[in-house]
């Protein structure tokens, strides 16, 4: 009979106290697992290497909102950016890639965010050294047609979509004017899992997006936007779009009449540069092709300079995503996670103290048992080890149960978290830091079991047997 089984039997004898103290450790560890996994998810999500774009250019406003909306798709888009501005950006010699990006509407099924973009989006690495694996043949054939769509792995899995599936868009989310667009998009590709927001995004061709009813806006709103972005007068704008504006006004009148008569009116006016608007443009800087080793640094420096330049404009801003992400990680998530981590460490330590109290209190009742073991020939070291093993079983056993509970909670909570916040959490997530939990708990068990173990070690056999 091993000392382990003697320790196990002793714990079983006090099963209620043992299971409660072990469970308190398990709860502490489960909380710690949750914090570690959430911390890991956010750290990876907001790490500098998680985004492949050097700059996100969009309307002035919150930098956080711009990045959260374009990169993570968890916040509303800022105001719109005119297509004409995007065309100007394309001509900038400092830019290697400029990808138009419109985040609006959701899929009618599953409510996944819709991103309207161009095929080139899939040829640019979405994160450091990570690309969609779409061959870059100059002009990608992915998302070729106007009504083509490419969906992320989670969208395909949850909605059961595959190549050939069709879907519609829910306009304006769940607001009062929410309605489903008549047009149908066809899935032409499903992305491999990336572990990013792309997994839960449905990408549609930007041409199709512009063709959707009500995506053109009114004449006045479009003119006002152009006035703001280009600091031109109303007359200048109207002059520039002199061919389009009369047609748009006529269309607006037809629609107003139809609505007054209670009829649904579907506009068939072709989109123009004036009516096209996007949320942002994703930019990869030119860098220094002659110094490839310095490319990352050069691009970052160029992006910072461009962001400073854009700060002087009236309507646009350029944001370096990693800067914002570092800020979010450092100021918000890091502190919250640190606080949670400290809290869970305290919980585990309190559990350890609980184990100490439980074992230590039992020592007075167990003096006789220890004396019997000694009378049967057990050396002092053996009775010391029996007590230490009890502490180890409670701590390490509690730790293992805690790991199971923690991962069970992650498994259950990941789809809920994804649905509520849009953050992707792998239900089978495992953090490297968890590997240290069991050794750490073993050390704690040794510390916790030492004093009761010494009490057992010092037990006076003759006296305890005579009591």
């Amino acid at each position: 009979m091993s000392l382990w089984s003697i320790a196990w039997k002793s714990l079983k004898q006090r099963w209620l106290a043992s299971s409660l103290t072990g469970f308190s450790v398990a709860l502490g560890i489960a909380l710690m697992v949750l914090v570690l996994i959430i911390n890991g998810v956010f750290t990876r999500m907001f790490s500098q290497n998680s985004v492949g774009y050097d700059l996100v250019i969009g309307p002035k406003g919150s930098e956080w909102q711009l990045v959260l909306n374009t990169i993570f798709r968890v916040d509303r888009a800022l105001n719109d950016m005119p297509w004409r501005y995007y065309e100007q950006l394309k001509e900038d010699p400092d830019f290697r890639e400029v990808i138009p990006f419109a985040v609006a509407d959701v899929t009618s099924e599953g409510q996944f965010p819709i991103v309207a973009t161009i095929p080139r989006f899939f040829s640019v690495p979405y994160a450091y050294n990570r690309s969609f694996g779409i061959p870059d043949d100059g002009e990608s054939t992915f998302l070729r047609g106007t009504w083509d769509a490419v969906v992320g792995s989670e969208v395909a899995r949850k909605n059961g979509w595959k190549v050939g599936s069709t879907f519609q868009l829910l306009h304006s989310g769940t607001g009062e004017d929410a309605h489903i667009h008549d047009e149908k998009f066809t899935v032409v590709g499903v992305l491999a899992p990336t572990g990013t927001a792309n997994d839960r995004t449905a990408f549609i061709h930007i041409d199709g997006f512009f063709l959707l009813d009500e995506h053109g806006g009114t004449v006045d709103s479009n003119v006002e936007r152009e006035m703001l972005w280009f600091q031109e007068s109303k007359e200048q704008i109207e002059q520039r779009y002199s061919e389009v504006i009369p047609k748009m006004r006529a269309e607006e009148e037809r629609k107003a009449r139809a609505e007054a008569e209670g009829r649904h009116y579907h506009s068939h006016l072709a989109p123009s540069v004036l009516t096209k608007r996007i949320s942002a443009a994703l930019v990869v800087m030119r860098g220094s092709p002659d110094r490839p080793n310095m490319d990352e640094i050069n691009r970052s420096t160029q992006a910072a300079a461009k962001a400073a330049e854009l700060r002087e404009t009236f309507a646009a801003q350029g944001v370096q995503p990693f800067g914002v992400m570092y800020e979010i990680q450092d100021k918000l998530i890091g502190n919250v996670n640190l606080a949670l981590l400290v809290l869970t460490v305290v919980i585990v330590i309190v559990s350890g103290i609980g184990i100490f109290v439980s074992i230590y209190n039992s020592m007075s009742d167990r003096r006789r048992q220890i004396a019997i073991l000694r009378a049967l020939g057990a050396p002092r070291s053996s009775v010391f080890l029996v007590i230490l093993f009890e502490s180890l079983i409670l701590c390490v056993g509690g730790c293992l149960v805690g790991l199971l509970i923690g991962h069970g909670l992650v498994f259950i909570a990941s789809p809920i978290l994804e649905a509520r916040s849009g953050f992707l959490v792998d239900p089978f997530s495992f953090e490297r830091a968890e590997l240290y939990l069991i050794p750490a708990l073993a050390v704690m068990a040794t510390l916790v079991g030492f004093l009761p173990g010494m009490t057992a070690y010092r037990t006076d056999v003759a006296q305890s047997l005579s009591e």
Partner: protein
Amino acid sequence: MSLLLENVRKSYREPGGRQLPVLNIDRFSIEPAEQVVLIGQSGGGKTTLLNVIAGITSVDAGRILVDGVDVARLNEVRRDRFRAERIGIVFQTFNLLPAFTALENVLLGMTFSGRVDRGYARELLDRVGLSHRLNHRPPQMSVGEQQRVAVARALANRPRLMLADEPTANVDTGNQQMILDLLRQACREHEVSLLLVTHSTEVSGQFDRVETLSRFNKPGVTE
């Protein structure tokens, strides 16, 4: 000789700091396979004597030869090992561990000698008539059954010397003789020397050699 005590001295320090002599034995011995009963007044040092023979309590002076080994000269770790290998102990209050089954309690008697033999443990329990109670824990057994388990446990390490401290005192009259017979027969079969402490004249009357502690222990006498 199975047991030989020579010039054994043992005293305790009282709360006031004064030394209280308990054992002062010039010579006491037991032959191999001999069965001896020890009687004496309460507080006369009987249990202390058993404890020093078993190496549970160290002596101030003297030799305690058990199976040729001087227990008094062994360090504590070796004494523990020697006790586990050569000495069997039956207590008045059985001292079984309540969380362990009958079989496990017997196995526990083998654990610290390093000779765990599950088959032999079963055989011992069978011999004390408890083959049907192997997986019962002490609280699920009668007092008589518990003491029989204690006897089996004491025999588990194939001892050379059996020490029994009033083994029948807590057992009902019906079981007293059965326990005594069991203990004596087992010791006879295994050629184990037996030193049994008792207050009962019914018990002592059955032994050929009856020793009164006060006859050879003179704690008040100093040289």
